[in-house]
């Protein structure tokens, strides 16, 4: 217990461990059921497809952080290297901050902003 606490304190006070951040791209299609989308996630790192990652996909409404989000789902690896598939069940149309939590070869979290409508999702540019 004390050893774990000590390791945690050392980790908290250590300097930054810079590593190349993964990148993600998202494509979603409306399924025909209200607010449900079939999504394909493309992950890469250093220009190469990121394979073998465990990807959990969630979504937050940017104007109500912490209090308005959807239950995360696990994405399944597709046949194309670096691609993963997930079904997103949102509560309404509009802008959502899609949250990709990565585990496995790389631990990270990526946030992508997309506007969801009756056709699919488009990246938000502000």
């Amino acid at each position, binding site marked *: 217990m004390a050893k774990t606490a000590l390791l*945690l304190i050392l*980790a*908290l*006070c*250590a*300097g*930054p*461990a*810079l*590593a*190349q*951040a993964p990148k993600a791209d998202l494509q979603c299609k409306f399924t025909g059921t209200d607010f449900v989308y079939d999504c394909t996630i493309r992950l890469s790192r250093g220009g190469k497809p990121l394979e073998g990652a465990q990807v*959990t996909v*969630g979504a*937050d409404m*940017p*104007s*109500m*952080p*912490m*209090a*308005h*989000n959807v*239950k*995360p789902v696990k994405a399944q690896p597709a046949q194309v290297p670096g691609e993963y598939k997930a079904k997103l069940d949102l*509560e*309404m149309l509009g802008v959502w*901050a899609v*949250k990709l*939590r990565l585990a496995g070869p790389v*631990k*990270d*979290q*990526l*946030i992508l902003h997309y506007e969801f409508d009756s056709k699919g999702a488009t990246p938000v540019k*502000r």
Partner: protein
Amino acid sequence: MDDYAIGVLTNVGLISFLALSAYLLLIAGEMSFGQQAFFGVGAYAGGMLTAMYGWPLPLAALAAMALGALAQFLVGLPTLRLRGLYFAMATLAAAEMARILFALLHFQRQLEGEPVGPDGTQGFRGIRWVFEHGVEPAEYLGIVYALLIVALALFLLVERSRLGATLRGVGEDAELAASLGVDVNRVKLGVAAAAGALAALGGVLYAHHNTYIEPRNFDIMLGVHSLAYALIGGLGTALGPLLGVVLDIGALEGSRVFQGYRMIVFGGLVALLLIWRPRGLLDEKAVQWLRRRFC
């Protein structure tokens, strides 16, 4: 515990800091609609220090708390002269000014060929300290709750002390407190600084949990909710705001009973409670009754 449960519990913990911050001002007699600004100050300051300058999170959190305290102290200097609705409006205006400043903030550094830092309305990505240091979600949850317990313990200690009585006295009747020799302005400025530091601590923890922040995260919705949590949970004890957060995020959001209609249910709940119990579920009378019964 699965990832979803950890996520909901972490959110409950994070927003509790903001609810406690609003509660602190409420017991001193001031209703602030602007605590989200200091949450944002903490999030931006802490995120910039760890992501752009490589500070360790504990030091960045302390610096962000100091900045949050200073920011709310400075806002309090002119606004705490106002009373009631006027103070509430002034805090809302200050929070909106802060949100616009976040939207205008473009300050980035190149790290490993990538721009890192706030980029106006595009937000601030890559606050990855938690991931770079291998802190697991369950461990981060532990850190959030350890800090929340410390904050709560301080609240409970203060509430049982002379300072707590002074605070409630100032909140109940500032003129009467002043006639008894209390420096009301000084007390309120101290409360404002403490509330700013508490909100900023929540903000820095939120930024590192989410890895991304943007000005829209800190709009009026967040401020109204933090105030509502304190009013629903009750003003009789610091456990009140936490009860408000647990009821909204833990019970309504966590259970997903109402799905997209949760906000409507929440609004109705606030309205009903303000009619039935104007000072919340755990109001002063309820706390007295519980103390007589169990202590």
